[in-house]
């Protein structure tokens, strides 16, 4: 036999043997994948923000398909995506609570006191390590925009006075900005809740007054006027029930940090 024919036969038989092994392995070791995972994943937004409580969209799709997670956890997709996911799963979508980020500080560069300069790395976290840049208030916004960098939806921007502004229509309530903020002044709350004390300072009333013109000075007027809507906790008034905050309380706030947006 000539060499070319011999080699064709050898190579062909080797190929046949290996393909047989692969064919058997494919049958025996087959992993059953729920086709719904792929389907769910394709309708999710795919930003991997983690707002649902899972590391990424793929993990959430798997969790929904296995029944471990409800279909309405994706705050980014909102009601639309929840309905699609629910349809794939054959479930009721349930209500999706629309949440947005709120920045609880309005002490911008003009209204708060800065006692020193800062020349280190231009991030809030680094400034916070160095004693909070030069900002006298040790609770308020530092204004280097770590939250802006963290937002995958371009829903938070710095205004010209160095304070982040949340664009409600773009915000999906994923919470990445709140996580990035070293001073924990960003909260994720239902969009219907619109009344807040826009201050996060737990400083003593005297110090609060010294370091910022728009800080909660713990005077307690609002709590006295609407005791059911607010409570005083560690030198800071907190809105517990926005429905019960009276207009009078908002009007009487001496530093105007309690208001409705």
């Amino acid at each position, binding site marked *: 036999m000539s060499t070319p024919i011999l080699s064709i036969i050898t190579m062909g038989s080797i190929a046949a043997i290996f393909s047989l092994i692969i064919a058997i392995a494919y049958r025996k070791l087959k992993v059953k994948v729920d086709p719904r995972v792929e389907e769910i994943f394709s309708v999710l937004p795919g930003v991997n923000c983690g707002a649902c409580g899972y590391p990424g969209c793929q993990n959430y799709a798997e969790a929904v398909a296995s029944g471990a997670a409800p279909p309405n956890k994706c705050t980014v997709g909102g009601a639309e995506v929840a309905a699609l996911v629910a349809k794939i799963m054959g479930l009721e979508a349930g209500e999706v609570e629309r949440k947005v980020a709120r920045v609880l500080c309005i002490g911008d560069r003009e209204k708060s006191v800065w006692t020193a300069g800062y020349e280190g*790395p231009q991030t809030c976290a680094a400034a*916070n390590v160095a004693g909070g840049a030069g900002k006298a208030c040790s609770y308020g916004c530092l204004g280097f925009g770590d939250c802006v960098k963290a937002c995958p939806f371009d829903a938070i921007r710095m205004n010209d006075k160095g304070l982040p502004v949340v664009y409600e229509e773009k915000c999906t309530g994923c919470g990445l900005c709140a996580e990035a903020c070293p001073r924990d002044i960003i909260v994720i709350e239902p969009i219907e809740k619109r009344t807040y004390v826009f201050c996060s300072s737990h400083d003593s009333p005297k110090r609060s007054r010294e370091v910022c013109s728009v800080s909660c000075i713990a005077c307690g007027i609002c709590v006295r006027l609407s005791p059911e809507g607010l409570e005083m906790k560690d030198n800071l008034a907190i809105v517990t029930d926005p429905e019960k905050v009276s207009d009078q309380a908002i009007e009487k706030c001496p530093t105007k940090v309690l208001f409705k947006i």
Partner: protein
Amino acid sequence: MIKLRMKRGIHPKERKISSSKEIQEFPLPKRVIIPFSQHTGKPAIPIVKKRQEVKTGEKIGEASGFISSPVHSSVTGKVKALETVLLPNGSSSLAALIDVTGEDVLAEPTWPVKDISSLTPGEVRKITREAGIVGLGGAVFPTSVKISPPEEYPIDSIIVNGSECEPFLTSDHRLMVEHAEEIFKAAQLLKEVIKASHGYIAIEDNKPDAIEAFEKLVSGLEAWDVVSLRTHYPQGAEKSLIKVILNREVPMGGLPFHVGALVQNVGTLYAIYEAAVKGVPLTKRVVTVTGDGVPNPSNYMVRVGTNAREVLEAAGAELDNLEKIIFGGPMMGLSVKTPDIPVLKSTSGLLAIKRAYRGKVYPCLYCGRCVVVCPLQITPTRLVKYIQAGMWDQAKKFGLFNCMECGCCSYVCPSNIPLVHWIKYGKYMVRRMETK
């Protein structure tokens, strides 16, 4: 006398302009602010109420765990309020504001005061605990914890740390010159407590008068040696000192007792002596007030809680013309944003700087100078690259948490990169992520 020197590190200009000034008793302030968090570990729990009368040395905060320390009133007066105040590192802590009502009335110590030679190890540990004694070199780690190492680690050497390698500071130097005998007695006491066989007194050679004072004390004693160290920074750091004197390396994440050593700062030893012999808890410390913004550089014995503004003004500093105020030394100290911060147990110096060095930050040249000087043999340039990129796992692998923030890398960097600041930021971010 043994002569040694450390490898790596740097030698900045010493500028010890206040080294010839005797320690002066700082006048009684009108009000003191005593934070309950002045030490490493959990903050103390307040045990005083508003309007309560307190005596000098009376306990006002109780230790809240094993690694914690009580806090004492440094004056006789009345508690005006309990409120949050600003600390040098920019964080806030609950503090007692005490208005001074009159001359000092010493409170009865909560431990037996007797002859120093008849104290048992248990009693010494109790004294250091009750008197609120913490490491005054800067780390403010509770001394009672430090002198109670686990039993499986016998300690053979005690090192008295009088190196004071930071430029400008002279508080330890003056203490050694003026109170050598007291420091040495406390050192001998601790040596008995931890059953060490040998003691070393480490002093840098830019303090010949201190070396001389201790040479006199140890002459004829077998178990003690004075070590004269070539002036270098950061030689006074615990781990560097152990490496230089004992040639032992403290393992990664380990403590000195892992290699059988105990290092105590001279200020801490003086505080132990005061507590054991006179029954006075840690309520005052030596503070060097210096810098080019201070006309009369001085060393003061300041009560803990005195407003730093008063101390700076007493030395003649014009606070309006300053660019920087630093708590501690220029290398590891904390730059503060306002002088209205109380002097703490950790405040070894107050620096008033009129003209601070500023340089534009350029990109890294990969020259490797930071790698050469790093006393802990970390590669700061690589580490900081990882931190800037947010690669926390890699950063940890490259020794993020081994860094002691001595500042040598930032000092030598020709591109003015704030390496230590980045490292501090990295530590903060990793801790934050781990707790979340």
